[in-house]
């Protein structure tokens, strides 16, 4: 009997250990191994860093060439001092991995369509659908093309290989205890890093910034409404913004010209349900002010890229120091070099160029087998790639992607295909080989304007507006990228894939790209607006160009002289809502005050006295934005129809049409019997907006006020989209405002550099922190200053021994004897 009891008890113990050592799926949610995860000696508790935690002071690393030093400052920015370029990139990889390993790997998995390997297929296979989309857009195809090219250049090959070796040296040193929190939560382990992953990360950024297009939507609009309406709803150039470069009549080069081809429109509507586009309100600001306008007499450069804000933070600040290089700024975890930053002589920052570098070509197959497609009157063979998805917890999934010479056929009968089975091949400049590593290698060592120009010769994707300033006193802007030479209207609609003439015939030569140096107005600036005046000899089109931030920035910069760094901080955090200034007075005249309810009357009073600042505590901003958010779906209801992919006009065009053509047919609300004008819709949206505010007030303990920051309720989302890991912030601003912080998107790295001859000075902050570990105090320690418009003065060291009192701790790194 006792033997029996012993046996039972032992069996229970062993079964319990087995169950608690294994990850389980419970109602579609993956539970970590509970014993392993909750064990405070090894599990997630181990990821909690003590308040005064510092890393190890001496580290021996196999693969490092010579001894090196890393100094950390109070916000955990590493200042890496190496003796060779090889060691510098090796250590950048090693140190970045120390703080951001999980994020780096997760983002490259996301880029490569491999998330299901970690999470499983997701509810209704959403994650598998996402992964398939990534492969079908040719993300890996583009990364592999680029990698070959990068590996052919000895410098970029060294960078990619050394950075990779550094990351792998870190991965190899890890035990379960040391694994980042997310690996423990999802119960998996990091795999070896490869140079391909560095490239995937750049493609990931290219996808964020340059994959946008509306070719199918525009094609449908053209079919449904005709050319005149398309030109009214979707003008290429709204002619309201200051172009980034205004050289009216002074473009002195002979442009490449092409014979025009008519665009071939498919007869049926395109019903493909496209992959969700990037948030169209994502944008960025950058500007550089010449010394003639600043207090110190030295140029000031300001950089402010806006992205989907996430945790761990998008950027990782770093200083890289070795013979011939001393640069500091923001790096992308997973790619070598500093991407936005400064050296001891120059500073640069980027905004997105918004140009259309994407096209869709209709494909006519010979047979259902999709082995051949029509091209120039002949049948050309396709290439079929079988993509394998190692979906966690279930059997592998296979997807056949057909490649044409244009590119992969993204949407077809097996993927997002709707009733009409026209196939479209996807062409994107990021599919092509390019070597941006060399751009940043050179930029990180640049001393003057000529070096900056030489560095940009290698930059192709994603097209960016590069602002520049130097201690020599120069300021400049260059809209650099690889742009197809387009015929008028080319790129706005889908193209006929059976004709060679439909394709890109040539690219704009680099020296004919839009650029500017030391303009007489004393500053350069860009905020994703239309790039050039109308005399620029190439046809320019894009998904949408910005209309508000750029005018506000240019207005402030034009009006101000004797500019200080504090003025620039203020401008980066400026909450002035120019869109409201231009629309609200008109909206208010549309209302009928005799029919107001009590709540509407209150709303009217608040709105009429609002100063147009989307400040944290502004009630007016809440009322205005609620009104606006209800207005757009009502106005453009016929553009949301399920039978055809369509897109809404821009904010600027919408306001313009409301004022100028209130009787426009589109403004009618289809679902109601009466015929509404723009004014009627504005009134209805006001009612709905006020109702929404009242509901919000009820939900918030019958609040008397609706402070904008509370109403907006913006948050920095964890990459895993697990709500308790998100951080909610109270912050002003919104899209279309210089402080472009919407609910989820916003300024991801605010930087100000004063290029003084006596020494470059810089300030920065970002919404998060240097550590990717949610158990570290450095996970989100910069958030507070970011939210309140304050900055950290960056510790830019000329040599290793400078300002030692400001060091947080120092790490000595030595090669391991092999």
């Amino acid at each position: 009997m006792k033997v029996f009891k012993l046996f039972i008890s032992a069996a229970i113990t062993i079964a319990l250990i087995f169950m608690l050592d294994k990850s389980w799926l419970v109602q579609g949610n993956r539970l970590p191994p509970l014993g392993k995860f909750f064990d405070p000696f090894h599990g997630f508790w181990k990821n909690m860093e003590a308040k005064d935690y510092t890393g190890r002071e001496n580290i021996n690393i196999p693969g490092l060439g010579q001894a090196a030093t890393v100094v950390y400052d109070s916000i955990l920015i590493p200042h890496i001092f190496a003796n060779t370029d090889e060691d510098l990139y090796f250590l950048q990889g090693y140190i970045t991995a120390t703080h951001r390993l999980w994020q780096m790997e997760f983002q490259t998995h996301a880029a490569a369509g491999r998330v299901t390997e970690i999470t499983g297929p997701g509810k209704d296979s959403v994650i598998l659908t996402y992964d398939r989309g990534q492969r079908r857009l040719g993300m890996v195809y583009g990364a592999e093309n680029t990698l070959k090219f990068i590996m052919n250049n000895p410098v970029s090959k060294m960078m990619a290989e050394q950075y990779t070796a550094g990351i792998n040296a870190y991965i190899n040193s890890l035990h379960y205890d040391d694994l980042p929190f997310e690996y423990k939560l999802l119960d998996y382990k990091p795999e070896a890093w490869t140079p391909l992953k560095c490239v995937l990360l750049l493609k990931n950024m290219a996808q964020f910034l340059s994959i946008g297009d509306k070719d199918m939507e525009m094609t449908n609009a053209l079919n449904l409404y005709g050319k005149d309406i398309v030109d009214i709803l979707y003008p290429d150039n709204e002619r309201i913004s200051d172009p980034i470069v205004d050289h009216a009549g002074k473009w002195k080069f002979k442009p490449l010209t092409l014979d025009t081809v008519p665009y071939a429109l498919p007869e049926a509507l395109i019903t493909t349900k496209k992959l969700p586009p990037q948030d169209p309100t994502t944008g960025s600001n950058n500007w550089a002010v010449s010394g003639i306008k600043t207090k110190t007499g030295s140029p000031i450069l300001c950089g402010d890229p806006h992205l989907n804000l996430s945790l761990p933070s998008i950027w990782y600040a770093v200083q890289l120091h070795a013979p011939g290089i001393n640069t500091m700024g923001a790096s992308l975890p997973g790619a070598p070099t500093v991407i936005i930053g400064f050296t001891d002589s120059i500073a640069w920052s980027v905004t997105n160029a918004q140009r259309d570098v994407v096209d869709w070509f209709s494909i006519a197959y010979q047979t259902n087998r999709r082995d051949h497609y029509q091209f120039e009157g002949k049948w050309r063979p396709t290439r079929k790639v079988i993509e394998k998805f190692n979906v966690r917890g279930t059997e592998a999934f296979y997807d056949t992607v057909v490649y044409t010479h244009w590119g992969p056929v993204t949407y077809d009968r097996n993927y997002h295909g709707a009733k009409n089975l026209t196939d479209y091949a996807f062409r994107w400049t990021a599919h092509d080989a390019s070597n941006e590593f060399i751009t940043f290698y050179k930029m990180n060592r640049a001393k003057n304007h000529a070096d900056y120009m030489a560095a940009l010769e290698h930059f192709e994707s994603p097209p960016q507006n590069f602002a520049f300033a130097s201690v020599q006193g120069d300021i400049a802007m260059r809209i650099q990228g690889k742009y197809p030479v387009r015929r008028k209207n080319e790129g706005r609609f889908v193209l006929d894939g059976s004709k060679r003439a439909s394709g890109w015939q040539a690219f704009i030569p680099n020296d004919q790209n839009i650029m500017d140096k030391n303009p007489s107005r004393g500053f350069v600036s860009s905020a994703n607006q239309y790039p050039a005046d109308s005399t620029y000899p190439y046809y320019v089109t894009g998904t949408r160009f910005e209309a508000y931030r750029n005018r506000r920035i240019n207005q402030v910069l034009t009006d101000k002289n004797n500019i200080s760094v504090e003025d620039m901080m203020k401008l980066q955090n400026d909450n002035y809502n120019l869109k409201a200034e231009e629309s609200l007075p008109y909206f208010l005249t549309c209302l009928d005050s005799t029919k107001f309810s009590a709540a509407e009357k209150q709303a009217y009073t608040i709105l009429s006295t609002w100063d147009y600042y989307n400040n944290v505590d502004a009630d007016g901003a809440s009322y205005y934005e609620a009104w606006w958010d209800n207005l757009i779906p009502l106005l453009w209801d016929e553009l949301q129809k399920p039978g055809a992919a369509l897109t809404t006009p821009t904010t600027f065009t919408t306001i313009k049409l409301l004022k100028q053509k209130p009787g426009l047919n589109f403004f009618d609300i289809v679902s109601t019997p009466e015929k509404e004008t723009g004014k009627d819709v504005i009134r209805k949206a006001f009612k709905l907006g006020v109702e929404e505010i009242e509901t919000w007030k009820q939900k918030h303990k019958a609040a008397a006020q609706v402070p904008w920051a509370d109403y907006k309720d913006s948050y920095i989302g964890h990459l895993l989209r697990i709500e308790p890991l998100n951080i909610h912030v109270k912050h002003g601003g919104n899209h279309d405002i210089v402080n472009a912080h919407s609910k989820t998107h916003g300024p991801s790295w605010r930087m100000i550099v004063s290029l003084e001859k006596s020494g470059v000075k810089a300030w920065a902050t970002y919404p998060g922190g240097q550590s990717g570990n949610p158990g570290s105090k450095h996970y989100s320690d910069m958030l507070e200053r970011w939210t309140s418009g304050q900055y950290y003065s960056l510790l830019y060291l000329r040599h290793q021994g400078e300002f030692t009192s400001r060091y947080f701790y120092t790490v000595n790194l030595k090669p391991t004897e092999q």
Partner: protein
Amino acid sequence: MKFISKVLIIMIAGYVLEMFLPWWSIAIAAFLGSALIRSKASFVAGFIAIALLWSLKALLIDFSSASDLPQRVAIIFPLRNKTGLIFFTAVVGGLVGGFAALTGSLLQRKRRSF
């Protein structure tokens, strides 16, 4: 008295073994401690020992850290709050400790009966 010394022995052994071995080493500690020292209520002794060991360690970590991660983990699971999380941590460890201790005590009696 024996009960208390058993709890203490298991806690100490658990602490030492966890320094070198994975989480399940708590089972070894409870098993050995219980096989060595004879007392009543071995399951309870093992449960209390490991529950105490794990919750004290978790509390200590939480105390020395400035991070709010436990609060966030608590909501993920969902265990409401940090107290719930520490309680759950204690129960997970306690269960393994309890059954391992019970097994150890049964082994002891078995050996005596031969």
